[in-house]
């Protein structure tokens, strides 16, 4: 019974979050007072073409085409309807490409890079942090703690710049820009996959190295606290194997706050990627967001922000649904 009520509550909550965020998402870019079509035209004029009567007409036609001539409330309702169908419309800057297509291409890169690095650094950082706090862990492992913890203090775009300089410019071990070589057309093949992998190593490493310490520090603190708990003493007095003591009693209790952080981190994957992606010119969603903000490309900005909102809300929902399974004490409070 509690499960049904709990589930319903969470789902209603989820929908409310998405609706609120989508509304803000609609109004925020429009508050900037810029005119996207005119902006685009001005760019064309700057690059050589003349501003004649025809241009004025074009602005009108395109405004009608994108529905920008209608009153704001009507635009809002249309927008909500489109969002519900996940119809994100067309990009203004890359017309006639749809926002969905742009997102799909960019998301693949971002998911490949950031979801992998976030999950990897979570798994290794958490495990590492737990082992560092575990008095029975080997000494060589525990002595790795200071350098990894230090890495956590460096922002990852800065680490990215350092790596770029050292490994791409000085040593020339890895390519320094983009997701693949200039001239290559993205396709599904081993060759392309390896090429993309080669380009992903530096951005991935800079994210991984700097976030590993973050997970490790948090986990070590929790693990130290848990190790002082009475149930750890009793478990040891029960003659339980060291591995079970570590996993079932120590890690199992210490990991709970980490799971919450992971859900939030997964949501921030998209926005957090921006700086690293821009530094490395990586064709992910961060770069696309960066460019579309520069180009006042409403539909793309909205599409990306909506994706971020949806991921955050979804990971929070997943968190809400899994935490009671991991920590039975949460169930009572609903």
């Amino acid at each position, binding site marked *: 019974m509690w499960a049904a009520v709990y589930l319903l509550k969470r789902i209603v909550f989820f929908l409310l979050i998405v609706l609120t965020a989508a509304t803000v998402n609609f109004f925020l870019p429009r508050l900037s007072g810029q005119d996207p079509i005119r902006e685009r035209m001005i760019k064309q004029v700057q690059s050589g073409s003349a501003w004649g009567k025809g241009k004025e007409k074009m602005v009108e036609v395109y405004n009608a085409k994108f529905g920008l001539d209608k009153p704001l409330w009507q635009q809002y309702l249309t927008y909500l309807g489109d969002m519900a169908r996940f119809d994100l419309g067309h990009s203004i800057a890359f017309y006639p490409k749809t926002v969905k297509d742009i997102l799909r291409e960019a998301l693949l890169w971002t998911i490949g890079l950031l979801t992998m690095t976030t999950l990897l650094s979570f798994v290794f950082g958490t495990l590492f942090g737990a082992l560092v706090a575990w008095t029975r862990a080997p000494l060589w492992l525990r002595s790795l703690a200071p350098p990894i913890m230090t890495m956590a203090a460096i922002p990852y775009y800065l680490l990215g710049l350092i790596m770029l300089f050292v490994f791409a410019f000085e040593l020339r071990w890895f390519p320094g820009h983009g997701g693949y070589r200039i001239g290559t057309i993205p396709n599904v093949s081993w060759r392309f996959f390896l090429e993309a992998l080669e380009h992903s190593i530096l951005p991935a490493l800079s994210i991984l190295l700097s976030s590993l310490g973050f997970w490790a520090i948090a986990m070590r603190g929790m693990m130290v606290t848990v190790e002082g708990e*009475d149930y750890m003493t*009793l478990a*040891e007095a*029960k*003659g339980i194997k060291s591995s079970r003591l570590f996993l079932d009693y120590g890690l199992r209790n210490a990991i709970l706050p980490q799971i919450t952080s992971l859900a939030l981190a997964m949501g921030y994957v998209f926005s957090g990627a921006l700086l690293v992606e821009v530094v490395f010119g990586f064709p992910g969603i961060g770069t696309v967001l960066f460019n579309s903000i520069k180009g006042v490309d409403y539909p793309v900005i909205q599409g990306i922000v909506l994706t971020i909102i949806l991921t955050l809300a979804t990971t929070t929902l997943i968190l809400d649904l899994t935490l009671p399974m991991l920590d039975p004490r949460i169930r009572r409070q609903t």
Partner: protein
Amino acid sequence: MTPQPRPNGEAGAPSATLQVRNLRVYFDTPGGVVRAVDDVSFSLEAGERFGLVGESGSGKTTLAMALLRMIKPPGHIESGQIWLDGQDVLALSGEEMRKMRLAGIALVAQGSMNSLNPVTRIRRQLLDGMKDHAAAGSGGADNGANAAKMSRREQDDYVHDLLARVGLEPQVAGMYPHELSGGMKQRVCIAMAISLRPQVIIADEPTSALDVVVQMQVMETLRRVQEEVGAAVILVGHDMGIMAQFVDRVGVMYAGKLVEVSPVREIFSRPLHPYARLLIECLPSLEEKDDLEGIPGLPPSQFERPTGCLFHPRCPHATADCATQEQMLDEVQPDRWVACHRLELIHNLQQETSVQESEAGH
């Protein structure tokens, strides 16, 4: 793991279930060496209930933890011997010691409110200890069931049987610790402790977090299951009322040393060591409404220990000799072991004062 083939009666192999000889547990601290347990010797017969009393910091819990070999750095067992059922506990390897815990010597922990893993069900916590003792050598194989070979059904029966022994419903198996009351949690801890039928159960202030009614119920449960499995019990605590009702013999600890070990009735009616006497006099009486009296002075600092008898600065009977000469635990009467220089004199003194008091009363 094979037990050392030492026949009973030989110098190294005591016949008692548990024998502790000259045990010393030291803590290396920046301020110097702290002697938490200092030259403690005692023995337990099978099924015997032994009480360890003393002030906070007197080394009771440290002694209990030393028996389990669970002293954490900077502490360590400096010297001494612990014999459990003919086995030299201090000579066991780490893995052998792990299997000795629960199967040979089990713990019912202090402050059991938090002694259970909050995120797993009781069933799992009752089974995991046994699972990790599967196919244990000596101590484990003969008295522990082999969970690895059990079917789900057999495991259920095993868990339900354990719960029934401590007076809990089978449904408790499927519950989480936060769904249980304090008394129920402590019962679960007792069920765990007897799950492999150990020779010795250490109960470290098992009822300190419970109200008095539940305290008695839990102690009754502990007594019943202890008799069923035939385990000896070491009850650590400072609740003299519970001691009086539960144990057969009492050991009084002061600053890491045992100062008196006597049968419980005798120590209550006629404590011999001055510290034991003051401790028992501290018990409030229901008949007279008196000011609560403590023992004057403080226990010695961990770093600056008095010379001679550790209690002499607070002892009303101390003489110059007490300040210079240590007195070992000695059997002054049958079954009564006391460490005091001035026993004869104090004994007479006590008789005198009691005569005076009775005269004054009339």
